[in-house]
Protein backbone atom coordinates (compact mmCIF):
# COMPACT_ATOMS: atom_id res chain seq x y z
CA UNK A 1 0.00 0.00 0.00
CA UNK A 2 1.24 3.51 -0.77
CA UNK A 3 1.32 6.35 1.72
CA UNK A 4 0.60 9.93 0.63
CA UNK A 5 4.22 10.42 -0.35
CA UNK A 6 4.08 7.24 -2.42
CA UNK A 7 0.98 8.46 -4.27
CA UNK A 8 2.76 11.77 -4.97
CA UNK A 9 5.90 9.97 -6.19
CA UNK A 10 3.90 7.75 -8.54
CA UNK A 11 2.01 10.72 -9.99
CA UNK A 12 5.29 12.57 -10.51
CA UNK A 13 6.15 9.86 -13.05
CA UNK A 14 3.27 11.09 -15.24
CA UNK A 15 4.91 14.49 -15.66
CA UNK A 16 6.82 15.00 -18.89
CA UNK A 17 9.63 17.33 -19.81
CA UNK A 18 8.26 20.71 -20.94
CA UNK A 19 4.94 20.41 -19.12
CA UNK A 20 3.05 23.26 -17.51
CA UNK A 21 1.35 21.70 -14.47
CA UNK A 22 -1.35 22.86 -12.05
CA UNK A 23 -1.27 21.16 -8.66
CA UNK A 24 -4.28 21.17 -6.35
CA UNK A 25 -4.25 21.34 -2.57
CA UNK A 26 -3.33 18.25 -0.48
CA UNK A 27 -1.50 15.26 -1.94
CA UNK A 28 -1.12 17.01 -5.34
CA UNK A 29 0.99 19.73 -3.68
CA UNK A 30 3.46 17.03 -2.60
CA UNK A 31 4.03 16.03 -6.24
CA UNK A 32 6.21 19.14 -6.70
CA UNK A 33 8.83 17.55 -4.43
CA UNK A 34 9.32 14.55 -6.73
CA UNK A 35 9.61 16.06 -10.19
CA UNK A 36 12.89 14.69 -11.63
CA UNK A 37 15.60 17.34 -11.59
CA UNK A 38 16.51 16.85 -15.24
CA UNK A 39 12.99 17.85 -16.29
CA UNK A 40 11.96 21.33 -17.29
CA UNK A 41 8.55 21.72 -15.65
CA UNK A 42 6.69 24.95 -14.82
CA UNK A 43 4.09 24.97 -12.06
CA UNK A 44 1.02 27.16 -12.52
CA UNK A 45 -0.72 28.63 -9.48
CA UNK A 46 -4.19 29.81 -10.48
CA UNK A 47 -4.05 32.95 -8.35
CA UNK A 48 -1.70 34.28 -11.02
CA UNK A 49 1.78 32.75 -11.19
CA UNK A 50 3.73 30.58 -13.58
CA UNK A 51 7.00 29.29 -12.18
CA UNK A 52 6.10 28.53 -8.57
CA UNK A 53 9.15 27.84 -6.44
CA UNK A 54 9.53 26.17 -3.03
CA UNK A 55 8.47 27.66 0.30
CA UNK A 56 10.67 30.62 1.32
CA UNK A 57 13.39 30.33 3.94
CA UNK A 58 12.22 31.46 7.35
CA UNK A 59 12.31 35.25 7.54
CA UNK A 60 12.03 35.64 3.77
CA UNK A 61 8.25 35.27 3.51
CA UNK A 62 6.63 37.88 1.26
CA UNK A 63 2.90 38.48 1.86
CA UNK A 64 2.53 39.45 -1.81
CA UNK A 65 3.85 36.07 -3.01
CA UNK A 66 1.41 33.26 -2.28
CA UNK A 67 -0.01 30.20 -4.02
CA UNK A 68 -3.63 29.18 -4.58
CA UNK A 69 -3.66 27.60 -1.11
CA UNK A 70 -2.72 31.04 0.32
CA UNK A 71 0.66 29.66 1.42
CA UNK A 72 3.78 31.80 1.22
CA UNK A 73 5.95 30.58 -1.67
CA UNK A 74 8.80 31.84 -3.84
CA UNK A 75 9.21 32.71 -7.49
CA UNK A 76 11.93 31.34 -9.76
CA UNK A 77 14.05 32.81 -12.54
CA UNK A 78 11.64 33.02 -15.47
CA UNK A 79 8.50 33.26 -13.35
CA UNK A 80 5.60 35.27 -14.74
CA UNK A 81 2.77 37.05 -12.93
CA UNK A 82 -0.68 37.65 -14.39
CA UNK A 83 -4.18 38.46 -13.19
CA UNK A 84 -6.97 36.01 -12.32
CA UNK A 85 -8.84 36.49 -15.60
CA UNK A 86 -5.76 35.61 -17.66
CA UNK A 87 -4.96 32.73 -15.32
CA UNK A 88 -8.24 31.03 -16.10
CA UNK A 89 -7.90 32.09 -19.71
CA UNK A 90 -4.78 29.95 -20.07
CA UNK A 91 -6.53 27.10 -18.26
CA UNK A 92 -9.62 27.35 -20.49
CA UNK A 93 -7.45 27.60 -23.60
CA UNK A 94 -5.75 24.31 -22.60
CA UNK A 95 -2.27 25.78 -22.28
CA UNK A 96 -1.78 23.93 -18.99
CA UNK A 97 -0.70 20.39 -19.90
CA UNK A 98 -1.56 18.52 -16.72
CA UNK A 99 -3.90 19.11 -13.80
CA UNK A 100 -3.53 17.07 -10.61
CA UNK A 101 -6.23 17.37 -7.97
CA UNK A 102 -7.89 15.58 -5.09
CA UNK A 103 -11.43 14.19 -5.03
CA UNK A 104 -14.12 12.91 -2.70
CA UNK A 105 -15.64 10.69 -5.42
CA UNK A 106 -14.94 9.71 -9.02
CA UNK A 107 -17.43 7.83 -11.17
CA UNK A 108 -16.61 5.17 -13.77
CA UNK A 109 -17.43 7.62 -16.58
CA UNK A 110 -14.98 10.20 -15.21
CA UNK A 111 -17.32 12.49 -13.27
CA UNK A 112 -15.69 14.08 -10.23
CA UNK A 113 -17.11 15.42 -6.96
CA UNK A 114 -14.77 17.33 -4.68
CA UNK A 115 -16.35 20.55 -3.46
CA UNK A 116 -19.52 20.05 -1.48
CA UNK A 117 -21.05 17.72 1.08
CA UNK A 118 -24.77 18.58 1.46
CA UNK A 119 -25.67 19.46 5.03
CA UNK A 120 -22.12 20.44 5.91
CA UNK A 121 -20.51 23.85 5.62
CA UNK A 122 -19.94 24.68 1.98
CA UNK A 123 -16.71 26.51 1.37
CA UNK A 124 -16.88 26.75 -2.40
CA UNK A 125 -15.35 25.29 -5.51
CA UNK A 126 -12.51 27.78 -5.93
CA UNK A 127 -10.88 27.06 -9.28
CA UNK A 128 -11.70 23.34 -9.38
CA UNK A 129 -14.71 23.60 -11.72
CA UNK A 130 -12.77 25.69 -14.21
CA UNK A 131 -9.83 23.29 -14.14
CA UNK A 132 -11.82 20.08 -14.61
CA UNK A 133 -14.05 21.60 -17.31
CA UNK A 134 -11.14 22.61 -19.51
CA UNK A 135 -8.10 20.44 -18.79
CA UNK A 136 -7.56 17.55 -21.18
CA UNK A 137 -5.22 15.70 -18.89
CA UNK A 138 -6.56 15.32 -15.35
CA UNK A 139 -5.10 12.98 -12.75
CA UNK A 140 -6.90 12.50 -9.45
CA UNK A 141 -4.86 11.79 -6.33
CA UNK A 142 -6.97 10.40 -3.51
CA UNK A 143 -7.56 7.70 -0.93
CA UNK A 144 -9.36 4.70 -2.40
CA UNK A 145 -11.97 4.58 0.36
CA UNK A 146 -13.41 7.28 2.63
CA UNK A 147 -13.18 7.41 6.42
CA UNK A 148 -16.31 5.26 6.70
CA UNK A 149 -14.58 2.58 4.61
CA UNK A 150 -16.74 3.19 1.53
CA UNK A 151 -15.29 3.14 -1.97
CA UNK A 152 -14.65 6.50 -3.64
CA UNK A 153 -14.49 4.86 -7.09
CA UNK A 154 -18.20 4.56 -7.86
CA UNK A 155 -20.65 3.68 -10.65
CA UNK A 156 -22.10 7.19 -10.17
CA UNK A 157 -21.10 10.04 -7.87
CA UNK A 158 -23.49 10.61 -4.97
CA UNK A 159 -22.16 14.08 -4.04
CA UNK A 160 -22.76 17.28 -6.06
CA UNK A 161 -20.52 17.21 -9.12
CA UNK A 162 -17.53 19.41 -9.83
CA UNK A 163 -17.35 18.30 -13.46
CA UNK A 164 -18.58 15.61 -15.83
CA UNK A 165 -16.61 13.02 -17.85
CA UNK A 166 -13.27 14.67 -17.21
CA UNK A 167 -11.02 12.45 -15.07
CA UNK A 168 -8.56 10.40 -17.13
CA UNK A 169 -6.42 8.75 -14.47
CA UNK A 170 -6.58 8.00 -10.74
CA UNK A 171 -3.77 7.14 -8.34
CA UNK A 172 -4.77 5.84 -4.90
CA UNK A 173 -2.92 4.04 -2.12
CA UNK A 174 -4.01 0.78 -3.79
CA UNK A 175 -3.24 1.31 -7.45
CA UNK A 176 -3.21 3.24 -10.71
CA UNK A 177 -6.33 3.35 -12.89
CA UNK A 178 -7.30 4.69 -16.29
CA UNK A 179 -10.87 5.93 -16.60
CA UNK A 180 -11.97 4.53 -19.96
CA UNK A 181 -13.97 6.69 -22.41
CA UNK A 182 -16.61 3.94 -22.62
CA UNK A 183 -16.78 3.79 -18.80
CA UNK A 184 -14.94 1.75 -16.19
CA UNK A 185 -11.79 1.86 -14.08
CA UNK A 186 -9.01 -0.05 -15.83
CA UNK A 187 -6.44 -1.31 -13.35
CA UNK A 188 -2.97 -0.51 -14.67
CA UNK A 189 -0.74 -1.08 -11.64
CA UNK A 190 -1.23 -2.22 -8.08
CA UNK A 191 0.55 -0.89 -5.00
CA UNK A 192 3.31 -3.07 -3.50
CA UNK A 193 1.81 -5.87 -1.43
CA UNK A 194 -1.77 -5.22 -2.61
CA UNK A 195 -3.64 -7.99 -4.45
CA UNK A 196 -6.06 -7.53 -7.34
CA UNK A 197 -8.70 -9.08 -5.07
CA UNK A 198 -8.22 -6.37 -2.45
CA UNK A 199 -8.58 -3.68 -5.12
CA UNK A 200 -11.76 -5.33 -6.44
CA UNK A 201 -13.24 -5.34 -2.94
CA UNK A 202 -12.46 -1.65 -2.45
CA UNK A 203 -13.88 -0.55 -5.83
CA UNK A 204 -17.65 -0.07 -6.13
CA UNK A 205 -17.57 0.99 -9.78
CA UNK A 206 -16.83 -1.25 -12.73
CA UNK A 207 -13.23 -2.50 -12.44
CA UNK A 208 -11.51 -3.83 -15.54
CA UNK A 209 -8.58 -6.19 -15.02
CA UNK A 210 -6.76 -7.55 -18.05
CA UNK A 211 -3.83 -9.97 -17.74
CA UNK A 212 -1.09 -9.71 -15.14
CA UNK A 213 -1.12 -6.42 -13.23
CA UNK A 214 2.38 -5.19 -12.40
CA UNK A 215 3.34 -3.62 -9.11
CA UNK A 216 3.93 0.13 -8.96
CA UNK A 217 7.61 0.98 -9.24
CA UNK A 218 8.68 4.26 -7.67
Amino acid sequence: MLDKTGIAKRIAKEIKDGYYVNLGIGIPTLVANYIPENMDVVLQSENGLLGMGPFPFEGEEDPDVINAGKQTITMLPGSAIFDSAMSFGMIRAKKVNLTILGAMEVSENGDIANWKIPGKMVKGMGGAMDLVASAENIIVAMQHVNKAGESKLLPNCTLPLTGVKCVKKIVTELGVFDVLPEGGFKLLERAPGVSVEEIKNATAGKLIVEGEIPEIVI
Partner: protein
Amino acid sequence: MNKVVNGADEAIRDIQDGMTLMLGGFGLCGLPENCIAALVKKGTKQLTCISNNAGVDDFGIGLMLKQRQVKKMISSYVGENAEFERQLLSGELEVELLPQGTLATRCMAAGYGMPAIFTPAGVGTEVAEGKEVRNFNGKDYLMEMAFDADFAIVKAWKGDTMGNLVYRSTARNFNPAMAMAGKITIAEVEELVQPGELDPDHIHTPGIYVHRIFQGVNYEKRIEQRTVRSREQG
Protein backbone atom coordinates in the same frame (compact mmCIF):
# COMPACT_ATOMS: atom_id res chain seq x y z
CA MET B 1 -6.77 64.30 -15.13
CA ASN B 2 -6.03 64.40 -11.45
CA LYS B 3 -7.88 61.51 -9.76
CA VAL B 4 -6.39 61.97 -6.33
CA VAL B 5 -8.64 62.02 -3.28
CA ASN B 6 -7.58 62.66 0.30
CA GLY B 7 -7.93 59.18 1.64
CA ALA B 8 -10.23 56.20 2.06
CA ASP B 9 -13.05 58.17 3.75
CA GLU B 10 -13.29 60.56 0.83
CA ALA B 11 -12.92 57.78 -1.71
CA ILE B 12 -15.91 55.84 -0.38
CA ARG B 13 -18.01 58.88 0.62
CA ASP B 14 -20.92 58.12 -1.73
CA ILE B 15 -21.13 54.36 -1.29
CA GLN B 16 -24.73 53.86 -0.15
CA ASP B 17 -26.63 51.11 1.61
CA GLY B 18 -27.70 48.35 -0.77
CA MET B 19 -25.00 48.93 -3.39
CA THR B 20 -22.94 46.28 -5.16
CA LEU B 21 -19.18 46.41 -4.62
CA MET B 22 -16.27 44.54 -6.14
CA LEU B 23 -13.35 44.07 -3.79
CA GLY B 24 -9.97 42.96 -5.14
CA GLY B 25 -7.70 40.43 -3.48
CA PHE B 26 -7.11 36.70 -3.18
CA GLY B 27 -7.31 35.39 0.36
CA LEU B 28 -5.72 38.20 2.37
CA CYS B 29 -3.30 39.10 -0.45
CA GLY B 30 -3.75 42.35 -2.35
CA LEU B 31 -6.70 43.58 -0.27
CA PRO B 32 -7.86 47.22 -0.26
CA GLU B 33 -7.29 47.37 3.50
CA ASN B 34 -7.83 51.13 3.86
CA CYS B 35 -11.18 51.18 2.06
CA ILE B 36 -12.43 48.16 3.99
CA ALA B 37 -11.55 49.94 7.24
CA ALA B 38 -13.35 53.07 6.03
CA LEU B 39 -16.46 51.08 5.08
CA VAL B 40 -16.47 49.45 8.52
CA LYS B 41 -16.22 52.91 10.10
CA LYS B 42 -18.95 54.36 7.88
CA GLY B 43 -21.22 51.40 8.64
CA THR B 44 -22.73 51.13 5.14
CA LYS B 45 -25.18 48.21 5.13
CA GLN B 46 -27.03 45.73 2.90
CA LEU B 47 -24.02 45.51 0.60
CA THR B 48 -23.56 42.91 -2.11
CA CYS B 49 -19.85 42.09 -2.23
CA ILE B 50 -18.21 40.45 -5.22
CA SER B 51 -14.89 39.11 -4.00
CA ASN B 52 -13.08 35.82 -4.47
CA ASN B 53 -13.01 35.20 -0.71
CA ALA B 54 -14.67 36.61 2.39
CA GLY B 55 -11.61 37.27 4.54
CA VAL B 56 -11.03 35.77 7.96
CA ASP B 57 -12.86 36.62 11.20
CA ASP B 58 -10.76 39.67 12.04
CA PHE B 59 -9.32 40.75 8.70
CA GLY B 60 -10.48 41.68 5.22
CA ILE B 61 -14.20 41.42 4.41
CA GLY B 62 -14.54 39.47 7.67
CA LEU B 63 -14.50 42.86 9.41
CA MET B 64 -17.54 43.98 7.41
CA LEU B 65 -19.32 40.69 8.05
CA LYS B 66 -18.80 41.10 11.77
CA GLN B 67 -20.68 44.45 11.59
CA ARG B 68 -23.50 42.81 9.56
CA GLN B 69 -22.83 45.13 6.63
CA VAL B 70 -23.01 42.43 3.98
CA LYS B 71 -26.31 41.16 2.60
CA LYS B 72 -24.84 38.94 -0.08
CA MET B 73 -21.42 37.54 -0.98
CA ILE B 74 -20.55 36.44 -4.50
CA SER B 75 -17.37 34.39 -4.18
CA SER B 76 -15.61 31.21 -5.23
CA TYR B 77 -14.27 30.12 -1.85
CA VAL B 78 -15.42 31.28 1.56
CA GLY B 79 -13.85 29.00 4.15
CA GLU B 80 -11.70 30.11 7.08
CA ASN B 81 -14.32 32.38 8.65
CA ALA B 82 -16.47 31.30 11.64
CA GLU B 83 -18.70 34.42 11.72
CA PHE B 84 -19.38 33.98 8.02
CA GLU B 85 -20.45 30.38 8.64
CA ARG B 86 -22.72 31.43 11.51
CA GLN B 87 -24.49 34.10 9.42
CA LEU B 88 -24.84 31.74 6.48
CA LEU B 89 -26.36 28.92 8.54
CA SER B 90 -28.73 31.34 10.34
CA GLY B 91 -29.93 32.76 7.02
CA GLU B 92 -28.69 36.31 7.73
CA LEU B 93 -26.28 36.14 4.82
CA GLU B 94 -26.90 35.15 1.23
CA VAL B 95 -24.08 33.50 -0.70
CA GLU B 96 -23.66 32.81 -4.40
CA LEU B 97 -20.74 30.51 -5.12
CA LEU B 98 -19.18 30.64 -8.57
CA PRO B 99 -16.18 28.96 -10.17
CA GLN B 100 -13.14 31.19 -9.71
CA GLY B 101 -12.53 31.58 -13.44
CA THR B 102 -16.19 32.45 -13.98
CA LEU B 103 -15.93 35.12 -11.28
CA ALA B 104 -12.79 36.63 -12.83
CA THR B 105 -14.12 36.48 -16.37
CA ARG B 106 -17.46 38.08 -15.45
CA CYS B 107 -15.40 41.00 -14.13
CA MET B 108 -13.29 40.99 -17.28
CA ALA B 109 -16.37 41.00 -19.50
CA ALA B 110 -17.69 44.12 -17.75
CA GLY B 111 -14.35 45.87 -18.29
CA TYR B 112 -14.27 44.87 -21.94
CA GLY B 113 -17.84 45.99 -22.59
CA MET B 114 -19.16 42.50 -23.31
CA PRO B 115 -22.56 41.51 -21.87
CA ALA B 116 -21.78 37.84 -21.32
CA ILE B 117 -19.21 35.10 -21.70
CA PHE B 118 -19.40 31.37 -22.38
CA THR B 119 -17.45 29.02 -20.16
CA PRO B 120 -17.43 25.23 -19.75
CA ALA B 121 -16.92 25.60 -15.98
CA GLY B 122 -19.93 24.26 -14.10
CA VAL B 123 -21.61 22.46 -17.02
CA GLY B 124 -23.51 19.48 -15.62
CA THR B 125 -23.28 20.79 -12.04
CA GLU B 126 -25.62 22.80 -9.83
CA VAL B 127 -23.81 25.98 -10.96
CA ALA B 128 -25.55 25.49 -14.32
CA GLU B 129 -29.06 25.62 -12.83
CA GLY B 130 -31.15 28.28 -14.55
CA LYS B 131 -28.37 29.26 -16.96
CA GLU B 132 -28.44 29.05 -20.73
CA VAL B 133 -26.29 26.26 -22.19
CA ARG B 134 -24.88 26.65 -25.69
CA ASN B 135 -22.99 24.07 -27.71
CA PHE B 136 -19.96 25.22 -29.68
CA ASN B 137 -17.99 22.67 -31.72
CA GLY B 138 -19.48 19.75 -29.83
CA LYS B 139 -18.85 21.07 -26.31
CA ASP B 140 -21.34 22.62 -23.89
CA TYR B 141 -20.77 26.06 -22.37
CA LEU B 142 -22.68 28.10 -19.80
CA MET B 143 -23.63 31.67 -20.55
CA GLU B 144 -22.48 33.84 -17.66
CA MET B 145 -23.38 37.53 -17.51
CA ALA B 146 -20.93 40.40 -17.04
CA PHE B 147 -21.09 41.79 -13.50
CA ASP B 148 -22.77 45.11 -12.89
CA ALA B 149 -21.09 46.74 -9.89
CA ASP B 150 -21.62 50.26 -8.55
CA PHE B 151 -18.07 50.45 -7.23
CA ALA B 152 -14.89 48.47 -7.73
CA ILE B 153 -12.34 48.85 -4.95
CA VAL B 154 -8.83 47.66 -5.72
CA LYS B 155 -5.36 47.71 -4.22
CA ALA B 156 -2.26 48.35 -6.31
CA TRP B 157 1.43 48.66 -5.46
CA LYS B 158 2.09 51.93 -7.27
CA GLY B 159 -0.14 54.37 -9.00
CA ASP B 160 0.17 57.86 -10.42
CA THR B 161 -2.14 60.81 -9.98
CA MET B 162 -3.78 60.00 -13.34
CA GLY B 163 -4.86 56.61 -12.02
CA ASN B 164 -2.39 54.40 -13.87
CA LEU B 165 -1.70 51.32 -11.76
CA VAL B 166 1.05 48.76 -11.25
CA TYR B 167 0.52 45.70 -9.05
CA ARG B 168 3.12 43.65 -7.23
CA SER B 169 3.55 39.86 -7.54
CA THR B 170 0.52 37.71 -6.75
CA ALA B 171 -1.15 40.68 -5.05
CA ARG B 172 -2.29 41.42 -8.62
CA ASN B 173 -4.89 38.59 -8.67
CA PHE B 174 -8.46 39.93 -9.13
CA ASN B 175 -7.47 43.60 -8.90
CA PRO B 176 -6.92 44.42 -12.60
CA ALA B 177 -10.11 42.73 -13.83
CA MET B 178 -12.16 44.42 -11.11
CA ALA B 179 -10.50 47.79 -11.68
CA MET B 180 -11.85 47.68 -15.23
CA ALA B 181 -15.34 46.65 -14.17
CA GLY B 182 -16.71 49.20 -11.70
CA LYS B 183 -19.00 52.05 -12.68
CA ILE B 184 -16.73 53.94 -10.29
CA THR B 185 -13.33 52.45 -9.53
CA ILE B 186 -11.38 53.35 -6.42
CA ALA B 187 -7.71 52.44 -6.24
CA GLU B 188 -5.64 52.55 -3.08
CA VAL B 189 -1.89 52.26 -3.59
CA GLU B 190 1.17 51.80 -1.43
CA GLU B 191 3.01 54.51 -3.31
CA LEU B 192 1.41 57.41 -5.17
CA VAL B 193 3.70 59.02 -7.76
CA GLN B 194 3.59 61.82 -10.33
CA PRO B 195 2.76 61.25 -14.02
CA GLY B 196 5.89 60.16 -15.84
CA GLU B 197 7.35 58.24 -12.93
CA LEU B 198 5.76 54.98 -14.05
CA ASP B 199 7.07 53.44 -17.27
CA PRO B 200 4.13 53.42 -19.73
CA ASP B 201 5.26 49.98 -20.90
CA HIS B 202 4.87 48.60 -17.39
CA ILE B 203 1.39 49.86 -16.52
CA HIS B 204 -1.10 47.07 -15.75
CA THR B 205 -4.29 49.15 -15.45
CA PRO B 206 -4.55 52.30 -17.58
CA GLY B 207 -5.88 55.29 -15.67
CA ILE B 208 -8.99 55.58 -17.85
CA TYR B 209 -10.52 52.80 -15.72
CA VAL B 210 -9.71 54.50 -12.41
CA HIS B 211 -11.84 57.33 -11.01
CA ARG B 212 -10.30 57.90 -7.57
CA ILE B 213 -6.85 57.14 -6.22
CA PHE B 214 -5.07 57.67 -2.92
CA GLN B 215 -1.98 56.52 -1.10
CA GLY B 216 -3.01 54.10 1.64
CA VAL B 217 -1.50 53.94 5.10
CA ASN B 218 -0.51 51.28 7.63
CA TYR B 219 -0.75 48.22 5.40
CA GLU B 220 -0.77 45.12 7.57
CA LYS B 221 -0.54 42.64 4.65
CA ARG B 222 -1.43 39.74 6.87
CA ILE B 223 -0.20 36.29 5.83
CA GLU B 224 -2.92 33.62 5.87
CA GLN B 225 -0.71 30.51 5.66
CA ARG B 226 2.89 31.08 6.67
CA THR B 227 4.86 28.23 5.12
CA VAL B 228 8.66 28.10 5.18
CA ARG B 229 11.50 25.62 4.68
CA SER B 230 14.54 25.24 6.87
CA ARG B 231 18.00 26.18 5.61
CA GLU B 232 19.12 22.56 5.97
CA GLN B 233 16.52 21.44 3.42
CA GLY B 234 18.17 23.75 0.93
